[in-house]
Structures are given as structure tokens and as C-alpha cells.
């Protein structure tokens, strides 16, 4: 007992008081900013291993980007990654960053279904399905619930059964072998329900796009409520994304 009290004393307060304003330490690759500097655009496009960059005007698709930082390293005058981790959005289009623009990425309240605010504002239970995820986004989703990020304080939790869930959180590019279990899980979740894609692999297939071992047809059938980019997505990106989706009103 005394040992426990000593540990509690040494640990002190670990939680981040305000997850909407916390700073991330050191270098962090969050929302990129593209300047209007003139560079050899073709070289820039060719260098990206994931085809996330297009030319004329230069754009960078965070839904395809693995945040490897190669473009910023080779073209520092053109692309810079800021520490802005609030990059989750409900519109796929908003993940595309254009040159010369430096706007925050966020939720478009007009696109949020009414029942999301009505029903999930104070409590959101999610069922996570890893469908070919490499355990990095899964690891960060678990971290979002640890004592530091403590997502549970907002009433957002991961639950064991789809029957108890208000939505499905998908990680990974969706392998052929997981396509059916994912569908079964989704069907078992009661309406109304949301779909959240976490990580580049889930949003676009990432580096597995075009692999013969994946089957992304599930995503063609349903409306996606939230895209949370990253490789893996940072816990602060996850929490802010979910909060903004459920709490930001028109």
C-alpha cells in the first residue's frame, strides 16, 4: 500500500489538461504548407514514393502521404511540415493541401449528419477493426486512451462488441482476407453508425494501393464520416478529430 502511494506521488499528474491546445515535442510532421517558390515540379512529383504530390498547381494529398518527409528534405523552400496535428476532416477533398494556402484543416459542420451531433455529442462508443493495419495506428489508438491523452474523459471509448458500438474505426488498407469480417462487423453495429478511417493505409491504401492482396470495395458502399491521416495518426489528431466531428455545431 505504501509502495502504491509512493508511486502515485512520484507519478504526479500525467494527463494533458487541454488536448486541444497541447504542443507536440521536437520535430513533428503535421499539416504541410506548400510555398509558391518556383521549383522543378516534375522532380518533386517523381520523388514522392506514394504519388501524393501533383503539379500545376502543386498539391499534396495527406490521404496518400506517409509523412516520410522526403519532399520537405529535398525541397525545403517548397514544402514544410508544421507541427499542426489537427488534420482530421470529414471531407476527402480537404486532405489535399494546395500551394500558397495556409489554412487549418478541419471539420466542415455542414457535412456532418444531424444525428451525429444529436446522439454522439456526449458519448461515442467505437468498434475498431484492423484490416491489414501494421499495428502502428492500433498502437496510437490505444495510446489515445492511456492516462496521458485520456480520451475516455470525453466519453469516447473503444468497446469489445460491435453491438455496443456507435461506429467502426478502420485501420489498414483492408486486405482481401479481412473484407468479409469487416462487413460482418459493420452489419452487426446498430444504426445510426459512423465510419472513421485512421491512417494513410485506410484512407487511400497508402503504400499498399494497387496490391492484389487488398479489397477496398467496402469503402465504395458507404459514406465516410471522418478521415484521420497519419502514418500512424498521432493520438492528438485522433482525439481532436473525433471531438470536432461530434461536438462542433453549425
Amino acid at each position, binding site marked *: 500500500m505504501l509502495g502504491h502511494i509512493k508511486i502515485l506521488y512520484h507519478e504526479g499528474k500525467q494527463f494533458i489538461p487541454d488536448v486541444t491546445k497541447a504542443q507536440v515535442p521536437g520535430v513533428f510532421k503535421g499539416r504541410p504548407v506548400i510555398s509558391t517558390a518556383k521549383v522543378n515540379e516534375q522532380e518533386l512529383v517523381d520523388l514522392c514514393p506514394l504519388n501524393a504530390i501533383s503539379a500545376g498547381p502543386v498539391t499534396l494529398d495527406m490521404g496518400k502521404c506517409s509523412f516520410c518527409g522526403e519532399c520537405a528534405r529535398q525541397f525545403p523552400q517548397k514544402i514544410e*511540415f508544421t507541427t499542426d496535428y489537427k488534420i482530421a476532416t470529414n471531407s476527402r477533398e480537404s486532405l489535399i493541401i494546395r500551394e500558397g494556402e495556409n489554412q487549418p484543416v478541419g471539420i466542415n459542420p455542414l457535412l456532418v449528419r444531424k444525428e451525429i451531433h444529436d446522439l454522439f455529442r456526449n458519448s461515442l462508443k467505437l468498434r475498431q477493426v484492423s484490416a491489414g493495419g501494421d499495428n502502428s495506428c492500433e498502437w496510437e489508438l490505444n495510446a489515445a486512451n492511456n492516462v496521458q491523452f485520456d480520451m475516455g474523459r470525453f466519453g469516447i471509448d473503444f468497446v469489445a462488441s460491435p453491438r455496443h458500438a456507435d461506429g467502426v474505426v478502420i485501420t489498414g488498407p483492408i486486405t482481401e482476407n479481412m473484407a468479409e469480417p469487416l462487413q460482418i462487423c459493420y452489419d452487426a453495429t446498430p444504426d445510426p453508425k459512423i465510419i472513421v478511417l485512421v491512417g494513410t493505409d485506410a484512407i487511400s491504401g497508402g503504400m499498399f494501393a494497387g496490391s492484389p492482396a487488398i479489397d477496398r470495395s467496402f469503402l465504395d458502399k458507404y459514406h465516410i464520416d471522418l478521415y484521420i491521416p497519419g502514418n500512424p495518426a498521432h493520438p492528438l489528431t485522433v482525439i481532436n478529430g473525433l471531438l470536432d466531428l461530434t461536438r462542433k455545431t453549425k
Partner: protein
Amino acid sequence: MKHATIVNNQTIPVSEIPEISYDEFFELNAGFITESVETHCVNYFGYPAGEMTKLICCIADDLHHVIYVSSCRVNPTGDLPSLSVNLFCFEKFEREIHENFGIGFTGHPWLKPLRYAHNRKDKTQTIANYPFYTIQGEELHEVGVGPIHAGVIEPGHFRFICNGEQILHLEIQLGYQHRGIESLLLSRSKLSEQVQIAESIAGDSVAGHTLAFSSVWESLCGFNATEDIHFSRTLALELERIAVHTGDLGAACADVAYQLGSAVFGRLRTPIINFLQEWCGNRLGKGLIRPGNNTFPFTPDLSKRLTEVLHVFEYQFIEMNDELFSMPSALSRFERTGSVSLENMVSIGTVGMAARSSGLKRDIRSSHPHSLYGTLQHEPIVKRHGDVYSRLQLRKQEVPQSITYIRELMTSVPEYHPEPVPMGPLAPGSFAISLVEGWRGEICHCAVTGNDGKLLIYKVKDPSFHNWMALAMAVRNNEISDFPICNKSFNLSYCGHDL
């Protein structure tokens, strides 16, 4: 000579690997394994060679610090005698070859599909109708768990046969995570893309797999990594070990409902992975290791920062462990739970920390040292009982050991080489192998290039490939309610196995 003898990270012309008949191949490799516990199979795979299939087997000899590579050419439509009849360590490898090429192995105990790879030979086999082992009996019942599990973890199916609360048998069916890694590594042409695929083999072993990939690549290009490159890689690998071991101790606490331990270990992982982010911009170290390149210099500021982080971390880590391992209620759940004997571990070819927890000293850092491990003179920690307690104790002791190594490394940080030396093309007609001791155990990557200098086959083996069987052995005769803690004590990779 019936085989080639090479060292870790060496490249040799394929023509120097003697091609022998399957009978000789069988005898040679069976001989290596039965000879001593110090020899174990690190990779055994096939690839198409015209109409035929070429098999390559790599046996590591831990005592002599070498790897024996042998090969043979077989007809894929025929049947071969199975090595697994007596040597269970070949069981998974033969299943994989069978799945990919259709080669039959007569006498194999259960020649079932391994991961339902997209390029499997028999497409009529689907993951939904896996042939589970069954036992008939009035008192017995089956419990199926997965593929989707209760927690935020990867998918896999566990089928238990139980007698009341007691587990008689567990069969683990994997393959749900198959993304086609090995074929993507062949079909993608940019190195920057290939390395990212390697980085995603298992997101909890980023340093391990990326290091193995980079080593194979550099070896094939004849590139000698500079001291600063080796430094960064060794450091990253040890940081990864500390982070995951710490998280695993937290997960074990959660499974025995010890809230304080779960909270403290869970959050203690954060300063370590946050340090990785301060260093390279990613909490899991993605982007840090690149072939032929040191992308993120280890500056004096970082060195100072890491010293501080480790100082605080170490004290809190030890304090929490002292408490955990003196609590009778926790110990009674750990001790004698999920035991695997040394004999069984040897027989199924277990590697890494699971093997060391049962008294089997397998650690690439000392047996086939790579990066800076030669200078660190690593001495593996070994436990005897092979139960959950041993596996947790091992983590508890490996973390301070890694901290000691990091401190030692930081006493002389090598000079940074900012300009990457351009790497040449891949050597044509060659074979390369790299062994890396990740936190879980031995990671093995092999590559073969064709005469045009392009990759013919790239073969990845995660330690989980061997160790899933150890988990199945561990739970026998245990209560089914102890399955989670057994599972957590191994913490095996689904995606690393499924590729």
C-alpha cells in the same frame, strides 16, 4: 561441399550455393538441426526457376557465428518427403512452400494453408473454410475467438478445444493481415517506396525490419555503412526494445486487473517514443532508417535530451517493477502460467525473447552481431521456467540492459556524414541474408537477384513465424481465462506473420 558457409549480412553469387539433390538437401539440413541446439533454421523458402522450383535453406550456427546455405531444384508437381515428420521447426516453412507452389510434403503432420496469400497455388482454399483440427467427445467443447478481437489489436482466429475450463488444444489460424508485402517489394521500382513497405511489415518493429531490409540492400550493393549509420540503427533498435517491453509489462498488468501497473507502464512508454519523434518526427521511428543514408543526425542536443529522459525513466521503471513483482496477487497469476519447456522450445524452433525465457539462448546480437553489437559485447539474459513470469522478468531485465548499452553508445557518438554516398546497382545473380535481433527476436530477410540485377525473390521472416506455435503450446492445460495473459506475455505479430 554441399553448402555455402557465410556470415550475417554477406552477399554471395547464387552459383556458389551448391545445388544438391533433394535427398542430400534433406539429410544435410536435418543433420544440422539434430546436431546441436545451437543450429536453427532461420529461413527456408522456394522461388520459381523456369518450370522447376528452387528451394533455399538457411541454417544459422550460433556457436560458430556462421550461416549454412544450401539449395536444390525440385519439380513443383511432385511430392517430397517432409522434414517436419521429425523436426517440427520446419513445419511452417513447408506449409508456406506448399501453399505457394503446390509441392506436397509426404508425412507432414498438417499440410494446411499458412496465410492464404493472394498468389497461393490453390485458390479454392479460402480463409473462411480453414480445416481446423477437431476432437470428438462428450465432455469437450470448442471456443472460437476472432478474427476481430475485443481490444484494439490485429485480427487472427484462435480455436480452442476445452474440457470445462481447461484448454486441451489451441489452433491459431492467421492470414487476415496478408497485404502482399513480398510481391510488392518485387513489383515496386523505387527504393524509397520499397523501404517504406519494409517499414510497414510490422509497425511495432519498425527499426528491426527496416534495419534488416537496409542491410540486405546495402550488402547487395556492396555498400559499407558508415559508423554514424550503424550508431543510429543500434540506438533505434534498443529504444524500440525499451518502448515495447515497457508497454508489454503494462498490458500484462491490465490482464490481471492491476490498474496502477497498467497506467504507469502504459504512460512510461511515452517518453521513449516521444524521444524517437523528437529525433526523426515519428513516434514509431518511421523514416529514421534508410539504406545507405543517415537521414537524422544524432546531435549533442539529442544526446543530452536522451540522457535526461533515460534518467527519469529508469527510476520510475524500476520503482514500478519492484512493486509489481512483490505483489502476491499478481505473482500468483504469472507464476507457472503458460509454461513451455526448453525441450519444446528447441523442437519447434522458437527464437528471441520467448526462447530465452525458457532457457534457450538465442540472440542474434551475440551470435551473429550486426551494427555496433560487436563492440557492445552483448551477453543475453536467459530465464529458466518458460512461464509468463519468466517472460515478464526477462523484459524487466532487458530494459535496464538496453539503457546501459545506450549510455555506452552515447559516450562516443560517431561523426555525422551528411552527404549520402551513392549506392551502386544490386549485384546480379546474388544471394544476401540479414539477421537482426528485434525486440521480439530474430528477424531474417533474404534476397536473390537475377542475372539482370533485378530482385527475383525477397523473403521476409518475422520471429512470430516460429513463435506462434510456442503460444499454442503454452496454453495447453491452462485455464482458458489465462489465455489473455499468456498471449500478452508473447505479444506476437499478426502482420509480421501474414506479410
